[in-house]
Each structure stands twice: as structure tokens, then as C-alpha cells.
């Protein structure tokens, strides 16, 4: 590893790896402003992970927002193009509330979007890049894949009111079978339909175990065929080991449709990657193109890489009034050029740790 990489935090190193991965596959970097007009987010609040947006009024009296999300801006930036799929990646900080204290945080986020006349290859490419992104973070990682058309079909078949459907979908997301059962029973859903949904929610695991079940459940045939084709592509790419089918992945159906997915790495308690196909959002924004993309949340990743440097500097060089600044400077540059992390101080700073402590004496300079 070169010295430049050594000084980078785990998060920065992962960012670097992800960027070069996306560039290798022809994704261009999209750079955005820290703020956008608030209207962009106000119209699509449910799309945002947290609906709280930091706003302020700019000098023209327009209401602005510190960006809580990148996807909406990218969608607006890209026009509908019939001739080519637009492939963009980003590496930005977003501002939103997180955690239990409900305060605003700056969250580093990297991701990519693929917008235009999408075909089966585009979807497979984005999914394999999602899997490769997880592998950049940790060797032990898992990509969970779900299909919203299948969930929508099975929930729709229950014939329950819209409000109950919402509750049922929440149960699916929490793998909460006991409440799903009682909701279905209380709202008079058919037994066969309820059982089919229960089996779908219980089935999660390797594609080889789950696909046969999908073929016997009343799932839309195109959706099952799409999953089968994706699994085939994934296995051919040598990534099959990390793929799971899991129908608890339920991104908001107002915006997402078809394939949705989520990624986990061992050692990080929450999902670190989330994505899916969002043609519905495009429609809402008056666009005819298809779109798919994902985001990698980098704020939790520092945890999985243990801190390696137990000292604040390799060498602490102590000097006093007798030291000539030119000679001290020469000595410092010499040490740094040898690849040592060196700190010059008059006294030992409290609470810091050093590999060794030396006293600068001009006569001995250049020998240490």
C-alpha cells in the first residue's frame, strides 16, 4: 500500500475503490451543489429516507434545502434520451436526520444511477456492481434481492382494503408472520391467498432454494422469469454465493417497481447498500425513461476496520530555545522523507502517544 493510501480513513479508502469500480464500467461522475431548491424534495417527500429537510431562504427569497438525497437531483439533471442509457455515479454528503436522537447529520454516500431505455443487461450490470461494491467493503457480504411485482400481486390477491395492505406490507418488511396472519384473518382474506403470502415471506435464502417455490406460488410469470435470468447472470459472473432472495426488502411501492435489493456486510448492524428500480418516480417527475440505481452508506463503515495506528506520531522531536529553526526544519524534513510521521513540540503534549521521543540537538542532527 502506498503512503497516500495509508493516511486515508477506511471510509476514504472504500470510497476510492468504489469510484474506480464505477469508472471501470463507464459511469461518469455527477457532481452537485450542496443545496437545491426545496420544491424538488417537497413534491417527493416519501421518496426520502427521512422527511426532515434542512431549509433556508437564499438572498432572492427562494426556499433552499441542504441536499438530503442525490437521486432526485440526478433524475432532474438527466433528460429523456432514446439513444443511450445514461450512467452516472456520485460521491456526495447528504444531510438528514438519523438515529434515535433525531438530529441532522452529514452522511457520506456513494452510489450510481442508470437512466434510460433499460434492458435486462442494464439491470444485471447494476446488480453485479452492487455486489462488487459490497465486496470492496468486506469479503463477507450478502446481497438480498426482491421483486416488488411479486409482492404486489400476492398482497393484491388478498382483496383487503388499502389501509390493511399497508399494514401487511409493513409486516412483510419486518418478517412479522404472526401479525400478518392475524391481519389477514381479521380482514377476511382468503386462506389460500394468505398461505401463499406467508410462504413467500418465510422463504428467504439462496436462489436455488427459493426459486422453485416461486414457480408454484401464484407469482407473475414475467417477474419470476426476470429473477431467474438475473440469478443465472449472477452465477455466471461468479457472484452467486453472495446472492439471497428475500422478500422482506420492500422499498416504497409509490416510487419503486420490479427489482429491489439491499446489501449487508458482516460487522455492520444495518444495511449498507440499498437500491432498486424506480420507474414510478420517473413517471411522477414526468419522465418516460426507466431507472435503476443504488446507494452505499459509508457512515457506518469505519467500525469494521480496526484502527491500526496506535500512536499519534512515530517520532516526537522535542526542541528548546537553543535550537536553530533552520536546522530543526532540515531535521524534520529528513525524517519525513524517510517515511516517518514526525511531530515537533517544545514539551510532550498530554494524552498523545509516540513511537519514540527524541531531543533535538543540532550537533547530532542528521544522525537520527
Amino acid at each position: 500500500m502506498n503512503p497516500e493510501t495509508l493516511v486515508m480513513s477506511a471510509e476514504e479508502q472504500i470510497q476510492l475503490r468504489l469510484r474506480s469500480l464505477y469508472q471501470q464500467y463507464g459511469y461518469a461522475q455527477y457532481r452537485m451543489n450542496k443545496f437545491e431548491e426545496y420544491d424538488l424534495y417537497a413534491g417527493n417527500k416519501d421518496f426520502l429516507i427521512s422527511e426532515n429537510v434542512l431549509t433556508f431562504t437564499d438572498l432572492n427569497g427562494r426556499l433552499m434545502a441542504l441536499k438530503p438525497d442525490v437521486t432526485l437531483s440526478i433524475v432532474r439533471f438527466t433528460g429523456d434520451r432514446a439513444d443511450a442509457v445514461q450512467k452516472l455515479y456520485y460521491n456526495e454528503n447528504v444531510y438528514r436526520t438519523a438515529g434515535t436522537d433525531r438530529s441532522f447529520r452529514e452522511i457520506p454516500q456513494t452510489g450510481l444511477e442508470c437512466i434510460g431505455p433499460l434492458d435486462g443487461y442494464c439491470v444485471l450490470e447494476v446488480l453485479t456492481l452492487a455486489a462488487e461494491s459490497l465486496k470492496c467493503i468486506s469479503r463477507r457480504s450478502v446481497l438480498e434481492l426482491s421483486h416488488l411485482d411479486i409482492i404486489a400481486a400476492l398482497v393484491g390477491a388478498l382483496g383487503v382494503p388499502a389501509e390493511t395492505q399497508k399494514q401487511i406490507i409493513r409486516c412483510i418488511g419486518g418478517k412479522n408472520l404472526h401479525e400478518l396472519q392475524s391481519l389477514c384473518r381479521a380482514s377476511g382474506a382468503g386462506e389460500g391467498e394468505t398461505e401463499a403470502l406467508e410462504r413467500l415471506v418465510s422463504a428467504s435464502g439462496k436462489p436455488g432454494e427459493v426459486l422453485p417455490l416461486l414457480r408454484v406460488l401464484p407469482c407473475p410469470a414475467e417477474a419470476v422469469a426476470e429473477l431467474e435470468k438475473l440469478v443465472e447472470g449472477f452465477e455466471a459472473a461468479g457472484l452467486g454465493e453472495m446472492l439471497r432472495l428475500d422478500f422482506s426488502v420492500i422499498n416504497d411501492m409509490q416510487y419503486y417497481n420490479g427489482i429491489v435489493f439491499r446489501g449487508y456486510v458482516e460487522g455492520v448492524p444495518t444495511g449498507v447498500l440499498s437500491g432498486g428500480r424506480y420507474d414510478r418516480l420517473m413517471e411522477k417527475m414526468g419522465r418516460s425513461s426507466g431507472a435503476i440505481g443504488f446507494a452505499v452508506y459509508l457512515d457506518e463503515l469505519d467500525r469494521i476496520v480496526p484502527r491500526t495506528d496506535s500512536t499519534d506520531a512515530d517520532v516526537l522531536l522535542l526542541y528548546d530555545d537553543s535550537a536553530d529553526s533552520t536546522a530543526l526544519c532540515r531535521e524534520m524534513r529528513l525524517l519525513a522523507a524517510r517515511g516517518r510521521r514526525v511531530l515537533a513540540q517544545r514539551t510532550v503534549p498530554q494524552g498523545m502517544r509516540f513511537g519514540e521521543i527524541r531531543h533535538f540537538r543540532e550537533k547530532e542532527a542528521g544522525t537520527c
Partner: protein
Amino acid sequence: MLNIALPKGRLGEKVYGMFALSGFECPAILEESRKLIFENGEKELRYFWVKPSDVAVYVARGAADVGVAGKDILLEHVPDVYELLDLKIGRCRMAVAAPAGFRDDPRRKLRVATKFDRIAREYYASIGRDIDIIHLNGSIELAPLLGLSDVIVDIVETGTTLRENGLKVFAEILPISARLITNKASYEFKREAVDAIRRGLLAQTEERP
């Protein structure tokens, strides 16, 4: 190693009994001691007791892989976890209670004292009633007696405390019981162990109505 967070107290002891019966025992836990963490090295289990309302925090943040938490806590804090099973123990109700002679005056904002802000807010939003939440951390029953609030939203077990203070249940919001929860990432990487616990506990809950 599988980390299990149990709620301190009687309910937690009952829950541990169910785990032990399912084959996930840890004899050290029964010994009198001031230890906080108990291990069964052979079965790769580590138990710890935490405040009941904290179990979901430990699980959501991955310090525990699985835990047992009341539905009230799960509804109030909405932790990002999977809720795998209703253990059908620790049963009680989330209810609206008020002094026996209370009549709701719809022209006025209803003052609601509670520990469960979100549950109270969602319940009253669902019936379209305008309310003012007064968040308290304990002795909720006191609030309507002193005129601090009109009603309370709280957990009702037997109703004895309510009765002794001249309060009555006016509406039931939902039934509460203990639930088995798991961290989402743990469920990916320790699936076999978590599923084995779920199966063991399920067998015991199935006998209950």
C-alpha cells in the same frame, strides 16, 4: 458466538426459561452474582440482562443478535429489526384511561399524559382527534388526578392500579406481548442459530392460545 439481550425482571426470567427449554441454556445465568454477561462457551451463547426498554437498542445496533422486547417498545421506537415471533407472554393492553366520570368534550383539545408519545399520537390521528401530548416518564396515573391531563395512554395489566386511583379504561388501543426480535445483519450472517431459536420458542408458544 450469538449475543442475546434479555429484559431484566420477571418477564426476562420467564423468557430465559423458554430459551433454556429450547436447548439454549446457560447455567451460569442462574447463579447469584453481580456479573453482567453470562456465557455458554460450548453452545456459543452469550446472554446479558438489560433494561427492558433498551433491548431493542442493543439489537438494532448489533450489540445483541437477538433479544426479547415488548410490542409497546417496538411500536414506540420503531427499531430497524425483524420481529420474528410473538412469545405470547407478558401480555397486557395499551389503553386510554381517565377518571371514572370523564366525558370527552370534542370542542377542546384533549390533554394526554403518556410515556408512549408515538403510540398515543398515532392512535388519536387515526380517529381524527386533536390532542396535546404531555410526556411523562413514570406515575402516569397521577396526571389526570391532579388535572395535569384529561386522560392517560398507558399499559394496563390487571387494572388494579387504575381501580385503586379511581381510573377506568375508556378505550383499548392494542394488545401487547413479548416479541422475539433480531438484528437484520445478524439474520443474514447467523441465520441458522437465529432460526433454531425461533423454532424452539415457536414450539412452546404454539400451545398457548
